[in-house]
């Protein structure tokens, strides 16, 4: 950083007046990236959702589709079912994640890095995979199906267990962050006042993380309600909104009713999102710059208890993953349990064979590179730009929207929008590019938030200093902002890569003969009943994502050593 600053000074020419072209250029860039979001998100969504007020011939029919929807009891049940699954998953996941995060941040249990890594595994697998494992474990022929005491795994039980597995890492990240920012001075004061540890927990710890818990709750709820993989694989007859969209669109080709269900599904997700935004604002206000970091004190009983708990959670995660690997290797479950690689002959199955696996890697790489460029630069312009307040506000809103949009809805929206004969962008249809664009858009929100958080940590004085030195903004961006934010940039790229490997719902409508994808192959193979090859391909995705993640770990350590040395010097 110091070197960069020196260089900046060297080249500055103090006599040249600061040109307003700098501001103009910046505004232009905001408009360009804003236009990306409008084209890749707002317009397709509008085309799709407007179908909910049209009939099948395209005539305007007002709200009559909605009336028809609410007159169909089975469809309305789905709202209840979705809420039920969402709420139960939220309560279970947040509870599990809270205790685990508590152990990670407030105990001195051994092996924290290993347990943290294990707890992050579910991010690396397609959301169909836990469902498949549950069938092998608890289905009619399940290895331990007695454990359900006669209950059926197909239905809410299966969906909820799958969703807990799938959402656990997301909740964990948020709650660990919330618990890490505790102020040790509060605990000292409480102890000095002789409060019991239970009382301290309820009067200091819980209030301190309440916003984190609420935030985690909303993220889990949104993910559980919009996910379509788990209910499809293991939902049985239990209808939820996400599978209703599938039935309307795929089963009956009723796009208008599919659009109505999409709008209904957007409501809880959007609501959750806005409440979360409000909460986030308060959380920032809570932080004090004088806070002292809390160092957990050793306590044998408590540490061992937390260790035991972490072992149980890890057993659950590794058990599901291991079951999937065995499912892939059994020759013909349950009648021939000898092991072999016959389920890896993907070329004989649905979904494009081994080609699709390599396509997925290609698609994920493009998504990581271009997605990171677009997202980070967009966040930079919103965060550090001046002027165009309304447009920056709109940009911020659009960047938040994808979180609430189910992938199936986005995928269909892309067909309708990008395949319009009048749309000049229709050359993109059936190409790798449209898969990349849809995936970047689908996972825009979390990437954008990561970038924004990193940028917020940077003092605004960098920009003021650069401006007073008459430096164009892009020089500050390239010489200061990017190096400082390298960890966040790497995080965004790995997040995009991993999700591009595992995503199904949006791309299932968009792939072409040359661009079949591994995650879609998992869906198709399971759909055809080829559950073992589906597990095999799912595990291939996991191994790939895991290797890239490991590579990312070493890479970021290397880069951090070079670019982040200043952080250590400040900390010491």
């Amino acid at each position, binding site marked *: 950083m110091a070197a960069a600053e020196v260089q900046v000074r060297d080249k500055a020419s103090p006599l040249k007046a600061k040109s307003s072209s700098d501001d103009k*250029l910046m505004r232009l860039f905001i408009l360009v990236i804003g236009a990306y979001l409008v084209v890749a998100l707002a317009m397709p969504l509008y085309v799709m959702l407007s179908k909910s007020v049209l009939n099948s011939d395209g005539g305007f029919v007002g709200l009559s589709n909605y009336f028809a929807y609410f007159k169909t009891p089975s469809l309305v049940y789905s709202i209840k079912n979705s809420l039920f699954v969402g709420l139960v998953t939220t309560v279970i996941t947040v509870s599990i994640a809270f205790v685990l995060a508590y152990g990670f941040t407030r105990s001195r249990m051994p092996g924290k890095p290993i347990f943290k890594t294990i707890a992050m595994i579910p991010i690396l697998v397609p959301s169909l995979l836990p469902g498949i494992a549950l069938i092998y474990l608890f289905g009619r022929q399940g290895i331990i199906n007695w454990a359900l005491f006669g209950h059926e795994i197909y239905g809410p039980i299966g969906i909820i267990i799958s969703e807990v597995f799938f959402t656990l890492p997301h909740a964990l990240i948020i709650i660990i962050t919330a618990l890490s920012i505790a102020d040790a001075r509060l605990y000292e004061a409480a102890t000095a006042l002789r409060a019991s540890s239970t009382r301290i927990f309820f009067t200091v710890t819980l209030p301190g993380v309440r916003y984190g818990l609420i935030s985690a709750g909303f993220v889990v709820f949104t993910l559980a309600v919009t996910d379509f993989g788990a209910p499809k694989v293991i939902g049985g007859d239990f209808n939820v909104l996400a599978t209703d969209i599938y039935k309307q669109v795929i*089963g009956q080709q009723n796009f208008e009713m599919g659009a109505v269900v999409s709008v209904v599904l957007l409501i809880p997700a959007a609501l959750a999102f806005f409440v979360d935004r409000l909460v986030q604002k308060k959380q920032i206000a809570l932080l004090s710059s004088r806070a002292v970091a809390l160092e957990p004190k050793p306590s044998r009983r408590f540490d061992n208890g937390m260790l035991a708990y972490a072992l149980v959670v890890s057993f659950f995660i590794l058990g599901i993953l291991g079951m999937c690997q065995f499912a892939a290797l059994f020759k013909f479950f349950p009648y021939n349990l000898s092991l072999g690689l016959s389920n890896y002959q993907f070329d004989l199955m649905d979904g494009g064979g081994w080609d699709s696996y390599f396509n997925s890697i290609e698609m994920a790489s493009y998504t990581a590179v271009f997605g990171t460029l677009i997202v980070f630069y967009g966040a930079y312009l919103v965060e550090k730009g001046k002027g165009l307040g309304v447009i920056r506000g709109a940009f911020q809103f659009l960047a938040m929207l994808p979180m609430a949009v189910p992938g199936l809805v986005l995928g269909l929206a892309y067909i309708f929008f990008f395949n319009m004969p009048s749309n000049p962008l229709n*050359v993109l249809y059936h190409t790798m590019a449209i898969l990349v664009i849809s995936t970047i858009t689908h996972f825009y929100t979390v990437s954008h938030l990561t970038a924004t958080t990193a940028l917020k940590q940077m003092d605004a004085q960098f920009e003021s200093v650069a401006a007073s030195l008459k430096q164009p903004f892009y020089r500050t961006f390239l010489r200061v902002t990017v190096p400082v934010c390298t960890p966040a940039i790497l995080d965004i790229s790995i997040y995009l890569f991993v999700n591009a490997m595992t995503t199904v719902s949006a791309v*299932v409508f968009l792939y*072409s003969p040359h661009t079949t994808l591994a995650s879609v192959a998992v869906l198709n193979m399971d759909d055809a*009943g080829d559950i073992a090859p589906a597990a095999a391909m799912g595990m291939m995705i996991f191994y790939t994502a895991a290797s890239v993640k490991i590579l990312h770990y070493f890479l970021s350590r290397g880069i951090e050593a070079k670019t982040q040395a200043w952080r250590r010097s400040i900390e010491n």
Partner: protein
Amino acid sequence: MKKSFYRGGSVIAGALLAMGLATGASAATDLMVYTAVEAEDLKKYAARFNEDHPDININWVRDSTGIVTAKLLAEKANPRADIVWGLAATSLLLMKGEGMLEPYAPAGLDALDPKFRDKSSPPSWTGMDAWVAAICVNTVEADKNNLPMPSSWQDLTKPVYKGHIAMPNPNSSGTGFLDVSSWLQLFGEEGGWAFMDKLHQNIGHYTHSGSKPCKQAARGEVAIGVSFAFRGAKSKASGAPLEVIIPSEGIGWDMEATAIIKGTKNLDAAKTLADWSVSEKANKMYNEGYAVIGIQSLAKPVEHFPNNIPESMIDNDFEWAASNRKRILAEWQKRYDSKSEPKS
């Protein structure tokens, strides 16, 4: 500096565009073929066709019947497929109604069984092979649970099978709709619904795909799967303890069919493929997996397929099924789909 930054932007844009265009070009005629044919057969189909027409390169877009149909209809404003080779005739009827098909009488049309062609002249689609409903019974699980072997649809309503049957949800699966519409034709409107009321009591769960009940039966996940014969025969051939049963009342069926998409830029190549798809050679190829084919006189018995299929096929009224589809599905949904409330 400023300049190079602009250049950076245009390089990105150029790369995105290049990614888009690079996948397009090739020497021979590229034909975009949408299909729902089982994935394991696709390479064989293309290879056999290329033996006679090496200059036409088939690009498959393969997915389940529902997704292919939804995709074709969603792309209606700007069709991407040149031809459909191997999609349910009921789906093609839907597309014909939307005016999306190019009527064409392929050379050799007369050899086809009259059932295997669109009634209009020239026909909008021609059939390839029939896929017929069947019951897959897992013999190991049936023994374990003391289930007698069913021989008719009505047998399936006996209380002994309670919870042991899976069938596809007609709202998600074409095979499911084929079953429902055939029962309504076999037992009449009232009798059909009465039968399904009783059957519903025995259903363990409904699935989203037509082949899944049989694959689940093959794995013993259920004892009995209402599915189609082709899937049962395939699973049996791969070693599953299955019995494929053709119910005595008769069986519903649909056919895989071929149709040219209106507005294709490769009309000649599409016609070549349409001609080939009704040829003797093609029919013999369909016969390797399917017992009932477009030119039935060529058909040889297929291993693991029951022999009595052709005479068991009902006189399926596709037009009736297509025009009553919405009503039937709504009724089915009202009766059986709304009962699935949280049980735990």
